[in-house]
């Protein structure tokens, strides 16, 4: 807990004249679960895209475990230990659930360079894939085609794929978005148990405040691309500006912000 796993300094992304993310400074500590909240258009996903290499920052630096990773391509950042999920399900639809995880595991273990092994007899990777699916509680679906399983199960499958690279830092982008209340509860419980296991450091964006206050050790509040406040859930709940900018807003105002701030 002494030195941070991820250090963000002055991170900025401009599209034309608009700053989608501006001058964010943030330290994420080892094994903590940090949540990023903010209305739609606050810049959460842009922030994620820069940290995971999907977008180049306009300014600023990202340091993972003491190594500068600013502007590296996604595959290099993945190799260095950041793994992410997406807001929209991002899986291999025509493969089975188990194969989806196997793809990521073969990539991680370097089997993907083997031209003449037989992938379907790679028992080590198969066992590891089943273990991961068990951890997410979706191992009973392992032989189903990924495109036919339920939306909530797809999101859990994606978390299994994210964890398959044994990341130092896990970025989850709205893991419960679009889930039924029951699926949300199940997913929250799962993420909590993964966080409690002490194996992972999580950075989570989430709209559902119950989920956020349930999971997060610390919360970063973003508003119009800027860092409004960072602190513990209790501090966030009592912070007047945060209440005004985000927590106090009802659904309708939220959508207005989405249109103007996007």
């Amino acid at each position, binding site marked *: 807990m002494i030195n941070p796993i991820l250090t963000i300094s002055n991170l900025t992304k401009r599209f034309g004249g608009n700053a989608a993310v501006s001058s964010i400074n943030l330290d994420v500590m080892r094994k903590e679960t940090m949540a990023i909240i903010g209305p739609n258009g606050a810049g959460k996903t842009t922030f994620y895209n820069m940290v*995971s290499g999907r977008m180049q920052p306009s300014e600023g630096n990202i340091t993972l475990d003491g190594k500068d990773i600013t502007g590296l391509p996604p595959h290099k950042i993945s190799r260095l230990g950041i*793994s992410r999920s997406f807001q929209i399900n991002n899986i291999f639809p*025509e493969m089975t659930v188990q194969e989806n995880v196997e793809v990521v595991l073969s*990539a991680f273990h370097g089997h993907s360079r083997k031209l003449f092994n037989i*992938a379907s007899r790679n028992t080590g990777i198969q066992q590891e894939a089943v273990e991961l699916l068990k951890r997410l509680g979706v191992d009973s679906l392992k032989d189903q085609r990924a495109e036919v399983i339920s939306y909530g199960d797809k999101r859990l499958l994606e978390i299994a794929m994210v964890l398959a690279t044994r990341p130092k830092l896990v970025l989850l982008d709205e893991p419960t978005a679009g889930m039924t209340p029951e699926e949300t509860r199940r997913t929250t419980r799962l993420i909590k148990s993964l966080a409690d296991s002490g194996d992972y450091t999580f950075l989570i964006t989430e709209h559902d405040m119950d989920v956020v206050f349930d999971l997060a050790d610390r919360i970063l509040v973003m508003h119009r691309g800027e860092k409004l406040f960072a602190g513990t859930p209790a501090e966030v709940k009592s912070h007047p500006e945060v209440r005004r900018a985000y927590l106090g807003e009802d659904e309708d105002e939220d959508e207005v912000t989405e249109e103007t701030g996007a």
Partner: protein
Amino acid sequence: MKIKILWALLTLVIAGLIAVPWIVSYFYIFIFTEILILGLFAVSFNLIFGYTGMLSFGHAAFFGIGSYAMALMLIHLEWPFVVSLLVSMGASALLALIIGFFCVRLNEVYFAMLTLAFGMMVFAIAYQWRSVTNGSDGLAGFSLGSFGLGLDLTLANPAVYYHVVLAIVVIASAVLYLICRSSFGMILRAIRQNHERVSFAGLNVRTYRLVAFVIAGSFAGLAGGLMAPFLRVASPELLHWSMSAEPILMAILGGTGYFLGPFVGSAVFVLLETWITSFTESWMLVLGIILALMVIFFRKGLLGTVLDWWMEIKK
């Protein structure tokens, strides 16, 4: 169980193919040779199309270079057949590495257009560099010489040449099939379905596409290397862009989802062409109608549709 039946069927087909010269007329030995060579060409194409999801409009460049390399080797060096064939493969692999280096950076339609552009350039060079390629006439007048590997084969005999082609095509296809079933092959399928997810799993997608492109190109070169001695000429038509369309049509006709689909497509394509052109000039019209029907009603191609149907009913 079903898989075993399929393997038994495949063994029967190969046994049938071995027996072809003793069963069919002289004319059909040529037809079957062509089916096998174009089938290998189409299967190599399907590694990047059906498996990796890259639609190349320039695959004939590698087929054609293989043919030219083979013809040049036979004319100038007179090395054994097998050695010349390996050199042809190498020449195509090198060309695929150069062209692929630029093309794999692009996606979808831009990739397709760039492969088309490179294909046209290669055609133009072969067409105009007369001192080496003999221009529009192409390279002819080579003798086939010895086979190599200590085998005494009369390659000029169409039946012997057919068996040589059959053996090489079966071995080459087996190698390609193993690649498709490997972990590398699984990554290629993953790239087709969602290339972004693969890069977030830590792989450089461009490198994987390039390796697939080079493998496909070298096997197209092998097919081309078999084509020149069969036609007794290596001519610019072999690397014309219309030749690049043939493996696309064959893969779609047979089915891109199954490894052997393009072979079925090649057989249908060559046989229909032979039969239909014997009584009408409008082969392209018939082919067009068949393709339209396939794309609208049988997306999985002939083999794909049959196998899927069979898997369903015998569950």
